C-alpha cells in the first residue's frame, strides 16, 4: 500500500484515467489466466524473484515488491521488451548522418494511465549532432495489444528534441518505486514522466552534463536547468504581467506610498514584506512556471479529448465504467459531492475543470484510524528515538492521532522534541525548558504595580491578553466557569510569549492557537514551548504588515486559478480576488468551531503539521472547501459580502475526512505547479532568514 502510493506521480494530468485504485482493485489488472501473455507466465515469475531480490539488496527497507501493481506491470513488460532489444538495434542506422549516439537506455517507460497494462516501454537516447544535443524516446514496436496503445505510442514518441528547446529536467527518486524524470520545454510544455525501470537517472543527467550546461536549480535540488538562461529570464520577467491579486489591501492608507505605482509589478506583491529587499530569482522562475502551466494543462486536456474522442470511452463521464467498481465508493462520493449542498441553480455554472477532468485527478487515499499507543511504540527504538520520522508523519497525515497520545506526539510534530532524541534526552530537555520558561515568566511577574503604572506597553499588552483569554473556548469544560485556572494559565503563557517575542507581542488569534495546545499538553512550560515552535511558522501571519497573510492569500488565489479557473474568473469578476473571506481559515488554521469541531480542529492541525505532501496543505484545504461550494457560490452569484457571510457561517457541513482527501488530491494534482504558486517563505514555511530582527514591528498606533 505504501509502495503504490509512493509511485503516484505528481503529474497526473498526463494520466488519462488514473483515478486512485487501492491495492485490491489494482490486483484486478494482473494478467489473468486467460490472458494471451499467459504463455510467458513462468518467466515473469522468475523475473519477479530476481527483481525482488535486487530491490531488497538496494533498499534495506524495501517492501515486498511482488505485491505491487506497478511492479507486476514491469515484469509483464520485461520479457517483451527484452525480445525487442535486438530488433531495435537495427533502428540505429536511422539516426541522422553524422550523428553520434552518446547515451542509450532501455526500459524507459511512459505510463499513459494508471492501468498497469497500458504502460509503454521504450528506449531513451541522447544524440549528438555537431554541437547540438537532442533527446529521443521511441517506444518498442509490436508490444501493444490494441489499437489504442498503438495510438498512445505515436502520441508519446519523442522525436529528436534539441536541448536548446528544453528548459529543465526534474528528477524524482522516490525511496520506493521507480525513478523518473520530467522534461520541461522552454515553451512551458512538458513531456509525461519517463520512468527508468532499471534506474540510471543520475547517469542520464551526468551524460547530458558532458554536452550542455546543466545547472541544479537553487530553488529545488531535483530540478536541473538546461543552459543558463539568466538573461532571457530577466527579459521574460519584466514582460510578465502578474495579476495584482492583493490590490485592495495594498491600497490601504497605512501602506500608501506615492512611489508605489512605479515599482516593478513583481516586487509589488511583497512591498510590505522584507522579501522586497532582495531580488529572488527562484521566485521568478516559479512565476514563469506558473504562467506556463495553463499551456501544460491545455496540452493534457487536448490530448485527453483526442484520446477519448474515438475510443470506447467517448461517453465518459456517465459511462458504466464507473459503476464496475474501478472507482472506490469514496471517490464516487467526492465526485458527486459538488451537488450535495442543496442548490438552486440560478445561473449556469461553469464546469469545474478538475471535477470534469476526473481523468486527471488522483483521489486522496482513504483515511485511516488515528495513530494509537501500540502502533506509536513500533515507531520507537529501544531508547525512544523515532526510527523513521517520514513514515510516522505519513501515518499521521492519513489518520491523525488518538487524543491520549497527542500530548506525546505533538511535541515532535511541533519541533519541541527532535525525532532523533532518546527518552532520557527528552526528559532532560523538559527540565531545562521548564526553568528557561520560568526565567522568562519572571520578567513580567516581577513588574510591580508601581512599575506597571509607568509601563504603558506592558499594561496595554496585558489588557489585550486579559480581554481575549476570557472569551477563548469558554464553552469547553476545560476553560469553563469563573476563575478557571486554565484561563489563567493561558494568560500567563501568552504574556510570557509576548516577552519572549517582544517584537511580535500579542495579537488576536494567538489565544485561539494556544487553546488546543494547552488543552492537549496540560502543562504550562510545555504548552509554552510548543506554542513558540508553532509561532515560528505562523508568526508572520500576525505581522503588522500582514505579510504572512498576504502571501498566503496570494498563493491561494494562484492555486484556485490553476485548479479551478472558472471559479477564479468568477472571483475576479466579482472583485473577490483578495480572498479575504478565507482570512480566518488561514489565520487560525480552521480553528473556530463553526468550521470544524474542537476535536476535528486538533486533527486537522496534526495533519497540517506533518507537512507531508506539502508544507502548505492548508491552502489546498481552502481550495477543497471552495470547490465544494463552487456551485452555490457561482449559482447564487454571491458577492464579496455574501461570500464572507456564507463562509463565516459554514457549519459542521464541512466533513473533515473528505475535505482532507480532496485537499490531498488537489495537492497531488497541482503537483509542482501548485508548489510554484506559493511564494518562498509563505507561512507555515520557516521565515526566510535575514540579518534584521525576526519580527520588525512598528508601534501600534491608530493613525
Amino acid at each position, binding site marked *: 500500500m505504501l509502495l503504490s502510493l509512493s509511485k503516484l506521480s505528481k503529474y497526473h494530468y498526463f494520466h488519462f484515467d488514473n483515478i486512485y485504485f487501492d491495492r485490491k482493485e489494482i490486483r484486478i489488472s494482473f494478467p489473468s489466466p486467460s490472458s494471451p501473455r499467459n504463455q510467458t507466465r513462468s518467466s515473469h515469475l522468475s523475473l519477479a524473484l530476481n527483481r525482488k531480490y535486487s530491490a531488497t539488496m538496494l533498499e534495506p527497507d524495501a517492501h515486498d515488491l511482488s505485491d505491487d501493481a506497478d511492479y507486476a506491470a514491469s515484469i509483464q513488460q520485461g520479457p517483451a521488451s527484452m525480445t525487442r532489444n535486438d530488433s531495435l538495434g537495427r533502428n540505429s542506422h536511422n539516426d541522422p548522418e553524422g550523428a553520434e549516439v552518446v547515451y542509450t537506455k532501455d526500459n524507459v517507460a511512459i505510463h499513459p494511465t494508471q492501468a498497469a497494462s497500458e504502460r509503454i516501454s521504450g528506449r531513451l537516447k541522447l544524440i549528438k549532432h555537431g554541437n547540438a544535443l537532442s533527446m529521443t524516446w521511441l517506444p518498442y514496436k509490436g508490444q501493444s495489444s490494441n489499437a489504442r496503445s498503438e495510438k498512445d505510442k505515436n502520441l508519446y514518441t519523442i522525436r529528436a528534441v534539441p536541448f536548446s528547446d528544453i528548459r529543465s529536467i526534474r528528477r524524482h527518486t522516490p525511496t520506493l518505486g521507480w525513478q523518473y524524470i520530467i522534461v520541461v520545454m522552454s515553451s512551458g510544455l512538458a513531456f509525461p514522466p519517463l520512468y527508468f525501470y532499471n534506474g540510471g537517472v543520475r547517469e542520464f543527467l551526468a551524460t547530458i552534463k558532458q554536452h550542455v550546461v546543466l545547472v541544479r536549480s537553487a530553488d529545488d535540488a531535483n530540478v536541473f536547468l538546461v543552459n543558463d538562461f539568466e538573461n532571457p529570464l530577466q527579459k521574460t520577467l519584466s514582460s510578465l504581467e502578474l495579476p495584482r491579486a492583493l490590490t485592495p489591501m495594498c491600497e490601504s492608507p497605512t501602506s500608501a506610498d506615492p512611489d508605489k505605482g512605479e515599482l516593478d509589478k513583481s516586487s509589488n506583491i511583497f512591498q510590505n514584506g522584507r522579501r522586497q529587499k532582495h531580488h529572488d530569482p527562484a521566485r521568478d522562475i516559479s512565476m514563469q512556471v506558473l504562467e506556463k502551466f495553463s499551456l501544460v494543462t491545455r496540452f493534457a486536456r487536448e490530448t485527453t479529448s483526442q484520446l477519448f474522442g474515438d475510443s470506447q470511452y467517448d461517453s465518459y463521464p456517465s459511462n458504466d465504467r464507473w459503476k464496475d467498481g474501478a472507482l472506490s465508493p469514496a471517490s464516487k462520493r467526492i465526485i458527486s459531492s459538488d451537488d450535495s449542498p442543496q442548490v438552486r441553480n440560478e445561473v449556469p455554472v461553469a464546469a469545474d475543470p478538475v471535477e470534469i477532468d476526473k481523468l486527471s485527478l488522483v483521489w486522496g487515499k482513504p483515511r485511516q484510524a488515528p495513530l494509537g499507543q501500540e502502533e506509536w511504540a513500533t515507531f520507537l527504538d529501544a531508547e525512544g528515538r523515532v526510527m523513521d520520522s517520514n513514515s510516522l508523519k505519513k501515518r499521521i497525515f492519513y489518520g491523525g492521532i488518538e487524543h491520549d497520545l497527542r500530548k506525546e506526539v505533538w511535541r515532535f510534530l511541533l519541533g519541541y522534541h527532535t525525532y532523533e532524541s532518546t527518552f532520557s534526552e527528552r526528559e532532560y530537555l523538559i527540565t531545562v525548558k521548564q526553568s528557561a520558561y520560568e526565567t522568562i515568566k519572571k520578567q513580567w511577574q516581577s513588574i510591580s504595580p508601581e512599575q506597571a503604572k509607568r509601563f504603558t506597553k506592558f499594561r496595554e499588552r496585558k489588557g489585550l491578553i486579559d480581554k481575549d483569554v476570557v472569551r*477563548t473556548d469558554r464553552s469547553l469544560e476545560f476553560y469553563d466557569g469563573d476563575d478557571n485556572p486554565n484561563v489563567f494559565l493561558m494568560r500567563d503563557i501568552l504574556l510570557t510569549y509576548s516577552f519572549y517575542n517582544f517584537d511580535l507581542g500579542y495579537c488576536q488569534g494567538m489565544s485561539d492557537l494556544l487553546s488546543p495546545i494547552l488543552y492537549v499538553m496540560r502543562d504550562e512550560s510545555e504548552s509554552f514551548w510548543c506554542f513558540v515552535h508553532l509561532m515560528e511558522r505562523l508568526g508572520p501571519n500576525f505581522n503588522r504588515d500582514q505579510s504572512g497573510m498576504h502571501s498566503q492569500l496570494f498563493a491561494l488565489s494562484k492555486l484556485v486559478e490553476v485548479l479551478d479557473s472558472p471559479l477564479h474568473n468568477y472571483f475576479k469578476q466579482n472583485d473577490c480576488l483578495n480572498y479575504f473571506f478565507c482570512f480566518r481559515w488561514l489565520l487560525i488554521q480552521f480553528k473556530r468551531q463553526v468550521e470544524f469541531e474542537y476535536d476535528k480542529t486538533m486533527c486537522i492541525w496534526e495533519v497540517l503539521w506533518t507537512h507531508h505532501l506539502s508544507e502548505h496543505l492548508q491552502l489546498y484545504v481552502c481550495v477543497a472547501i471552495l470547490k465544494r461550494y463552487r456551485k452555490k457560490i457561482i449559482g447564487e452569484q454571491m458577492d464579496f459580502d455574501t461570500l464572507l*457571510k456564507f463562509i463565516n457561517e459554514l457549519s459542521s457541513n464541512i466533513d473533515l475526512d473528505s475535505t482532507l482527501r480532496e485537499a490531498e488530491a488537489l495537492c497531488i494534482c497541482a503537483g509542482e505547479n501548485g508548489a510554484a504558486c506559493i511564494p518562498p517563505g509563505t507561512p507555515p514555511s520557516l521565515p526566510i532568514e535575514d540579518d534584521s530582527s525576526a519580527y520588525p514591528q512598528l508601534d501600534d498606533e491608530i493613525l
Partner: protein
Amino acid sequence: MSDTAHNHLNAKLVLLGDMGTGKSSLVIRFVKGQFLEFQESTIGAAFFSQTVSVNSATVKFEIWDTAGQERYHSLAPMYYRGAAAAIIVYDITSSDSFAKAKKWVQELQKQGNPNMVMALAGNKCDLEDKRNVTAEEAHAYADENGLFFLETSAKTAVNVNDTFYEIAKKLPRAQPTQNPAGMLLVDRPADGSRAASCCG
C-alpha cells in the same frame, strides 16, 4: 453603500472601535436578539444583515463587524469604504477605549464617506459601578463632531435597537438631500472617485 427604491434602502454600516468593547455583541443583539457573556473575538471581519422599518420605509442594514485590535487596523478601510453609516463603539469602563473611539472618528472624518451617518455608542452601560467615561463627556464630544450618541448595553439590550433605528431615520435624509449624486457615488465604490482617492 446605500440606494433607495420604492421606499427601500440598503445601507452599508460598519462597526469600529477598540477590541473588547462589544462590537460583535451589539450586532448579535440587534440581529439575533442574543447575548453571549464571552463572545469570541472577531478574526478578520464578520458580515450580518438586518432590516428595520422606519416610518413608511424599510432599511436593510448590511453590517460589517470588524476586528478591534490595532494590529488589524490596516484592513479597516476595506470595510468602511463606501459605508453609509458607522457605529463607533467604546466601553464606558475604559477611558482608553474612548480615546481609541475618538481616533476612529478622526479617521472616518478624514478618509470616509463625507455623508456617512456616525453614531457613538458607549457600550456596557450596565456596568455603572465600573464606569470610567461619563456620559456628559461623551455627549459633549459627540455634539462637537456631529455624531449622535447613546449609551448602550448589549447585555441588557438597552438602546441597542434604538441606535440602529436612529441611524435608519437619519439615512434617507442624509443621502438624497445633502448630496443627490451621493447615491451613485456610494453605490459603486469602485467608481466613486471620492472614496477611491481617500482610501487608495
